[in-house]
């Protein structure tokens, strides 16, 4: 099979296996240890780890450097890249460096608005949007050309990811937007965290109706909830997250909230695995990475498939 990037994630997904990815947030500081600890913890439980890019617009160590630390541990990174913080020059130059450093998966995002972060008075860049970021990287990979049309020397082997949020509005247009992202170049999708499974199922029905599940690998996002406070916070404060009341009640009534959170997460994964067109799960255990190995194990997703080192490119 001809590979676009030869990444583990690409091999596993194109081999038809159910994939597991997780999120790994870089530190608000200069030590590599945080990333290294998360990498060691998760390496045998996940096929690749997403390194976030100034997530929620809070300044952290760059995604690219986090990815490099993971690479050094033989953990495969997914480099997240937001268009909030860089223009087309910076984007393309960061991509050249990332490819040279062995990064093969890139997740293309708009980025949370700077208003939410710790530099709310910053100027947002948004020179191009996330859709156009996909187009840009696809062109760099497939045509070996910069946006300007100039030639790129060397290969740009990338497996391109995008986000999809079935829980934002307007609901029907969310499928159109997914179709556009596929057209723009998305090879895989990592969705917003799913709590409202019936709504996700309705979205996936529409995705399959348009045959989009045949054109892209969809990894369903989940967040293990640690406390009822976290559940309430996400319900009230995070735009585009749908947290059903029933879930908040379960967390409130639970004797052991953490245990209940894991249980809920496992139930969601169980239902997601049954949905036709879902090719993997993406676990975003925000400040609770330690729970990921247990979840992967209990969800029956171990062992992770061994991937041959032979790059197919």
């Amino acid at each position, binding site marked *: 099979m001809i590979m676009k990037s030869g990444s583990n994630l690409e091999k596993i997904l194109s081999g038809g296996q159910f994939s597991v990815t997780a999120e790994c947030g870089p530190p608000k500081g200069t030590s590599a240890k945080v990333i290294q600890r998360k990498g060691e913890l998760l390496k045998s439980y996940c096929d690749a780890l997403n390194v976030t890019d100034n997530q929620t617009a809070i300044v952290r160590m760059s995604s690219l450097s986090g990815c490099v630390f993971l690479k050094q541990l033989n953990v495969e990174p997914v480099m997240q890249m937001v268009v909030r913080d860089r223009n087309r020059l910076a984007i393309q130059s960061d991509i050249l460096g990332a490819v040279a450093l062995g990064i093969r998966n890139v997740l293309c995002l708009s980025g949370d608005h700077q208003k*939410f972060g710790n530099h709310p008075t910053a100027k947002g860049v948004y020179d191009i949007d996330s859709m*156009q970021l996909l187009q840009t990287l696809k062109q760099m990979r497939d045509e070996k050309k910069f946006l300007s049309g100039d030639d790129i020397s060397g290969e740009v082997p990338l497996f391109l990811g995008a986000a999809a949020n079935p829980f934002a*509005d307007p609901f029907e247009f969310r499928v159109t937007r997914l179709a556009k992202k596929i057209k*723009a170049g998305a090879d895989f999708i990592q969705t917003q965290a799913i709590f409202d499974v019936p709504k996700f199922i309705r979205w996936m029905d529409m995705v399959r109706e348009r045959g989009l599940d045949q054109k892209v690998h969809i990894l369903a996002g989940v967040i293990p909830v640690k406390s009822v406070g976290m559940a309430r916070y996400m319900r009230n404060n995070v735009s585009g997250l749908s947290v059903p009341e029933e879930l908040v009640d379960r967390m409130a009534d639970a004797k052991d909230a953490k245990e209940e959170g894991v249980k809920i997460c496992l139930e969601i994964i169980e239902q997601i695995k049954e949905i036709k067109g879902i090719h993997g799960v993406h676990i975003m255990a925000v400040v609770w990475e330690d729970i990921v190995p247990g979840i992967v194990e209990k969800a029956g997703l171990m062992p992770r498939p061994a991937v041959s080192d032979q790059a197919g490119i």
Partner: protein
Amino acid sequence: MIVGQQKDFDEIKKMISAYSRILVLGCQTCVAISFAGGMREVEILASMIRMDRKMAGQDVEIKEEAILRQCDFEFLDSVKDLVAGCDVVLSLACGIGVQAMAERYPDKVILPGLNTTFMGVTEEMGIWSERCAGCGDCILDKTGGLCPIARCSKGLLNGPCGGSVNGKCEISPDVDCVWQLIIDRLKALNQLEKLEEIFPIKDWSVSGHGGTRKIVREDLTA
């Protein structure tokens, strides 16, 4: 129109503190409509300055005037004598008016009494909102007459992002998601298929990122 908002009085006070002969000069066009820099606002601000100086036991001589358009050189000569008789002009025009005055009266200090906020509309009495970013390459034909550059918080050309909920933007429940409005309008116009296409990367060089903009019309120049 250009919408302005008067600066905090404390900031204005600080700006004019070194001067005792002040011309407060309004503009009767856009900023008068947004109740920020018309003759009425000139009179109120002038009174406030007088009162403030009186309380501080300081002398001040204030002249009040408003001209039809401070952005237009041909109207600026009418205040020649008033300008000559003051130490400083506190302009209540938009930034264009302030600069036109500074250009016309190079020896005089011209200070801004307003913040020029945006190009927009009066939604209702007392409420103004932004409509145009002056990007230099209008796309309203493709977006149902609603501008995502001026009105999407991220300026997305292929929105809406994942933060659009119940028609509102993720940054505030008081801000409409313009992409929701675009979709609703194109749906009503039976043109939703327009949004199936990916909007191409924009040329920002015409929006000011290519350097200060200037238009020269050969057919009109002498």
